[in-house]
């Protein structure tokens, strides 16, 4: 069971910074990159990410209507399900990042999630500047894969 595996690790390992699913969605709302912990049913995560897009759109349009408000890129907790918590982030180019974490992982604080998003955004910017990458194509960068692996829960 992946959950037991995390508890038995020593405290200085990044036990607290683990996501179960990370996705990058293009502005036209199709996935550019989606990776989940393989022990779980991947289709379930795809579905979770898909449904979270509605909440993302809602947050974006709600923030847009409040006058004079400088909207942040970090959207915060999108919605909690009984097993998972879903966080969102949108860039200025309307690319969305979604991180799904286990609900039982209560030690993950807000600013840790923010820093995960920042790392993703930085790595994504590098991918965009790679002349061999065409915007709109799925992301196939090893560097990006490594950043994401560093944030995902280890597979059992």
């Amino acid at each position: 069971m992946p959950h037991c595996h995390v508890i038995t690790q020593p405290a200085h390992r990044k036990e607290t910074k683990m996501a179960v699913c990370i996705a990058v969605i293009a502005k036209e709302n199709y996935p550019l990159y989606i990776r989940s912990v393989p022990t779980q049913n991947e289709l379930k995560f795809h579905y979770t990410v898909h449904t979270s897009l509605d909440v993302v759109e809602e947050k974006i349009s709600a923030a847009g209507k409040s006058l004079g408000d400088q909207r942040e890129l970090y959207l915060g907790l999108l919605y909690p399900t009984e097993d998972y918590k879903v966080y969102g982030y949108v860039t200025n180019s309307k690319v969305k990042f979604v991180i799904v974490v286990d609900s039982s992982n209560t030690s993950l604080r807000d600013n840790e999630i923010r820093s995960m998003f920042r790392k993703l955004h930085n790595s994504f910017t590098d991918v965009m500047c790679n002349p061999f990458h065409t915007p709109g194509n799925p992301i196939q960068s090893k560097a990006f894969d490594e950043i994401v692996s560093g944030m995902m829960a280890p597979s059992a």
Partner: protein
Amino acid sequence: MPEVSLFTLVPSTGMADDALFEFLHMEIVAHVYRDLQSLKGDTDTKDRSSRVSILEGMGYRVGQGLIERLTRDSPCFKDELDIMKFICKDFWTKVFRRQVDNLRTNHQGTYVLQDNKFNLLTQLSNGKQYLDQAPKYLAFSCGVVRGALSNLGLESVVTAEVSVMPSCKFQVVIQKL
């Protein structure tokens, strides 16, 4: 150490980035015109427009990547005018090392950006001698602006004209879907 790369044109590092880009740009234009000419013979209007679109296409891809890097830390833009102001100030400063001198709009999606000392034209002499060559050197920059706007969510058509060197006007027409 500040980054030295053509994708992050940081003006004040004292490194040779700016001159490198100017030389590269001149050579790109020369290459596109020289190579295609050797294949197809004399220039005619159809060839000329395909070369301009090659340069513009290059600029488009560069603009997309650049804007991703330059807006990484800035807050979201409120509206179209806000985006255009960003292009005229921060973006123009980072890419062309100066701000746009004049921005005019009809508030219906057409913007005219006037730069009185466009830095990719300053190397050409100020008189009328090279006036008809000037559009070749503006195609890439039109593409950069179009790529930047496209990644910010605005599809547009960007054209440029020169009447008095080195001042030029970029016309941006936002396409409403």
